[in-house]
């Protein structure tokens, strides 16, 4: 079992004071989360127009026009995403560490990381590249533009399995945890996330209505639940790190 400890201090003025703050390593990681989500909002909502998603039931000409209008901001937005997507990995590492503090086997931490590593691809990166390819040369054959459009949005809204797994793992870990690292109500919120993710699966069938990729149920209610969950976990991680003893032994 390895202890979480600070690096050996050589002399008093070898390292600046702020690096000797207890748990500074975790605090740095925690800060990446609110920063990432603000950037996420800027990128996906303002720049690339993926949130809320444009409609599935428009004509190829309208899709081409969409790419032409937003070509510059799509490319800027997703270029930014390529820089900052790494922050999500840091966040997941932090949550995984907190899961390891629980009385359950670290398998849950590994599964959590695994689920999101896989999920990040169809959830963020594939949609980004599909849209960027469309925005890069909007003079392609309209049918190819339609395909890139569908690819991005189906992937973005419809990639639900990995996130279901993430939430199942987190919920189960919290339910079984005797150390009360994270409260049980977060586990229940994770169950909501699973339900709303499952309700995104009909996007592969419907081009309009509440269960399309821009639908009131598949997209809007799901996103609302996600926002609540994300606020909750940011706050709960803050509390968990604060209450964590700097000399606590954490399982491997």
């Amino acid at each position, binding site marked *: 079992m390895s202890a979480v400890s600070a690096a050996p201090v050589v002399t008093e003025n070898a390292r600046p004071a702020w690096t000797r703050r207890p748990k500074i390593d975790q605090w740095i990681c925690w800060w990446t989360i609110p920063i990432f989500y603000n950037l996420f909002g800027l990128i996906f909502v303002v720049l690339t127009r993926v949130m809320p998603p444009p409609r599935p039931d428009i004509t190829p000409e309208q899709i081409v026009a969409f790419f032409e209008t937003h070509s510059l901001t799509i490319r800027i937005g997703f270029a930014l995403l390529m820089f900052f997507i790494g922050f999500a990995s840091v966040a997941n590492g932090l949550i995984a560490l907190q899961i390891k503090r629980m009385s359950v086997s670290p398998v849950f931490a590994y599964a959590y990381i695994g689920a999101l590593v896989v999920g990040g691809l169809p959830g963020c990166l594939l949609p980004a590249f599909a849209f960027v390819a469309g925005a890069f040369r909007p003079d392609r054959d309209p049918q190819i533009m339609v395909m890139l459009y569908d690819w991005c949005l189906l992937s973005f809204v419809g990639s639900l399995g990995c996130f279901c797994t993430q939430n199942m793992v987190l919920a189960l870990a919290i339910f079984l945890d005797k150390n009360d690292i994270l409260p049980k109500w977060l586990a229940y919120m994770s169950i909501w996330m699973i339900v*709303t993710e499952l309700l995104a699966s009909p996007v592969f069938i*419907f081009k309009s209505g509440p269960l399309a990729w821009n639908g009131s*149920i598949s997209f809007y209610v799901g996103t609302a*639940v996600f926002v609540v969950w994300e606020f909750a976990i940011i706050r709960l991680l803050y509390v968990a790190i604060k209450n964590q003893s700097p000399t606590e032994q954490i399982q491997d």
Partner: protein
Amino acid sequence: MANTQTAEVNAGGTTTRAHLPSNKDMWVFVLGDLVIFSSYFIIFEIYRHQQRQTFLSAQQHLSLSIGVVNTLVLLASSWFVAQSVQLTRAGEYERAMRLTVGGGLCGVVFILLKAYEWSTKIGHGLTFGSNDFFMFYYMLTGVHLFHVALGLVFLGVVFFELRNPKLRRVSMVETGATYWHMVDLLWVVIFALMYVMR
């Protein structure tokens, strides 16, 4: 963990102070779930308002009989579960366990009836994509079915904890019961909105 002492003052059984069954975590879940489901119900009603005739005709294909029987089955299951909470509080763990199983079995019957109902509808060509009414029908009853299955897991945990004298806690039984009653409550709403109201 919430205080599970109920102050039963006299034979009339009136409580002198308010008692929150289960714990705040489960109530966060229940209240939030009710809000989320309500958003689905309201969206359903808006679509019904826009397509009155389609929904009215489609509704006729639903088997009201199975709907009623399913409602009665879930109400009975809630009776079982509510009584098992009372028995657990009175220390009658054996009977509480049996009633928990009774509630769970009703849940299984509900699932079987729902599966039968779905299969007959699909057999008649009424599928998820047939029209907006049936889209909502499968979606709402499907999400509800997920909740029933989850409820069976919770009741299972309650049963196993009741079996073990070292694990018995009233609050745990209350927690499973609160969730199960929510499942019953949601079905009562679905039944009214989809099967009966026109």
